[in-house]
């Protein structure tokens, strides 16, 4: 039964068209196993710099798994195994020489649920730069915190209470705080795993606006369940289904002229 399923999925992967854009992050033939169970089947995808790549697809299709391969967060899951190559700026992240800790400083991540540290707002942002030794003095650190909060669009709201606990902020503010925390270590790539799924529409709009701003400096990969959000914020979209990429390309094309019927069915809400 498993073999049969593998075959159909492999077929799906083959029909997936290769993206022509050269990627800042470029995955080829990435497979992920959780113990015996295979979660990703030969995924190949390019994620260009200074663009937002949206990963869409039904629940459990492997979007988040793929996202977590890029900064090797899957390493932290016992029994997880990753095959294939993910190249960032010509360097394979799974290379023995690449230290996952340093990699994660280059590839920031924002999670589904806002997860600020139970420390002050200032500490939340300052933590990354401090452990990486980015600041030599207190004032330098304060500058990094300020500029990160400014870029995350949170400075005006929190500048007068930097020492208040990060957890005292509203959900949307917490998510922007977490984005500021990711920005503070000057990453090149920012991964976002359904960053708005726990937020109300107004907070969602603010985050989307922020993503659009950040696009000019980073390569952003976002997992989302909202078609509308993918259409609004992304330039490129990849449709995942059952652990494989069915179709990837420019967002406009995917949404207006999908080549695969499964993509079309999903986008038009017929399944998923």
């Amino acid at each position, binding site marked *: 039964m498993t073999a049969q399923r593998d075959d159909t999925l492999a077929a799906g992967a083959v029909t997936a068209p290769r993206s022509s854009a050269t990627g800042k992050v470029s995955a080829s033939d990435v497979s992920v196993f959780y113990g015996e169970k295979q979660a990703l089947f030969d995924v190949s995808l390019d994620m260009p710099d200074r663009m937002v790549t949206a990963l869409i697809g039904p629940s459990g299709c492997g979007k988040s798994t793929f996202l977590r391969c890029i*900064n090797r*967060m899957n390493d*932290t899951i*016992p*029994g997880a195994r990753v095959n294939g190559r993910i190249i960032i700026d010509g360097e394979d992240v799974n290379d023995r020489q690449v230290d996952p*800790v*340093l*990699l*994660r*400083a280059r590839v*920031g*991540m924002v*999670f589904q*649920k806002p*997860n*600020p*540290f*139970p420390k002050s707002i200032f500490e939340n942002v300052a*933590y*990354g730069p401090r*452990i*990486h030794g980015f600041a030599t003095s207190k004032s330098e650190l304060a500058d990094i915190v300020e500029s990160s909060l400014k870029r995350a669009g949170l400075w005006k709201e929190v500048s007068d209470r930097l020492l208040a*606990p990060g*957890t005292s902020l509203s959900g949307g503010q917490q998510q922007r705080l*977490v984005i500021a*925390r*990711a920005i*503070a*270590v000057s990453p090149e790539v920012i991964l976002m795993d359904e960053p708005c799924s726990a937020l109300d529409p107004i907070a969602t709009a603010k985050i989307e606006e922020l993503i659009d701003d950040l696009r000019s400096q980073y390569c952003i990969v976002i997992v989302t369940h909202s078609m509308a959000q993918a259409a609004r914020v992304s330039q490129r979209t990849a449709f995942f289904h059952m652990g494989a990429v069915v179709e990837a390309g420019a967002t406009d094309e995917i949404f207006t002229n999908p080549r695969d019927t499964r993509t079309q069915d999903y986008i038009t809400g017929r399944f998923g």
Partner: protein
Amino acid sequence: MTDAALTPAQAAKARARTEAEARLKRRYRAEARFRLYGRAAIILALTFLVVLLGRIGLQGYSTFVDYRVSLPVQVDANRVNLADLGGSNFNLMVAESALAMLGEEDDPYGQASSQMMSILSGDLGFQVLDRLRADPSLVGQTITVQGPMKANASLYYKGQISRDTEVGGRLLSDRQLDWLDELRDQGRVTGGFNWTFLSRSDSTEPEQAGVLGAVIGSAMMLFVTALLAAPIGVLAATYLEEFAPKNRWTDVIEVNINNLAAVPSIIYGLLGLAVFINWLAIPRSSPLLGGLVLALMSLPTIIIATRSALRAVPPSIREAALAVGASRTQTVFHHVLPLAMPGMMTGVILSLAHALGETAPLLMIGMVSFVPGVPETLTSAATVLPVQIFIWENASERAFHERTAAAIIVLLVFMVLMNLVAVILRRRFERRW
């Protein structure tokens, strides 16, 4: 309205409604019943607790009062050899002075003085000796000494023995009771707080026995336990929970730790006997040995408590730290451990409090002995509070039973203090969100 006036549909609806109401009533009754059971259980538990504590309190509180007598003692120059002060019978001298004060004289057989000696503490004789040692010129003069009554005499003053008590049960003759009344009427006897009980160690004489040695012994032993068990337990738990790979070996270790936590404490005593005494030759009955055994006993509990405290830290915090490029060690030490701190602290302190009250393993390592002094080092012979309670409980003298209860009170006070510290630490660390 009669049933005939209702259509079948209406009748069915009405029936459904009455059934629903009946069901609702049953549910409310079930809930009320359950609440009642719960309250009954709590009341029962509280009753047991009140009875237990009340009994201990009632039996033990009188220990904290003692009666002291002040007596003028005629130091007879003929009976004191300055070259050998310790050779004189000062107890007899004290008893004779007391008899003289009461207008009586010793009989040729010394029965009166011997009866008098058994209501006055031997401490008085030692006081005379100490005074003479300090100042030999006092020989031939009358000096006043103040000291405790014998425990049985105190029991009479406290009303625990009365003239109605049969002579065999009170160990005091009518004549002695007359003297005690007379001494009290003369204002020679004063009651007060029993500092002796808190400032002295074990003694064969109940009126001179105290818990200081046991308290210090317990403190030293607990110090050793805490010093060993807390860091080892916390580090072991942290490694197992945060760093160790999940494989067969760690499973085996985990199962064994859980099993060890359920091993009867006396087994740890046997282990201590075999390993620490027979093999490592650590002095028996020492706080060091007791601390080692109790540390072994506390380790599994501390590890389990720490692991569950670590597990309670949301994984999102670990992900957050890892995602900004913190190493595993940084993640654990900067974020996970501080959050787990209150739970860990509570676990450590509660298991230490448990160790403080442990008796069985200490009996196995020879800690059940008469130790009349305060232990000076970690390797000198010592006794600890629960063992002291055990020893006194086995003593035959009535006054030791009262002291048993009092020692239990002292132990409970320390327990409550430790639990209080646990609560305060918890509050304090939790306040940092």
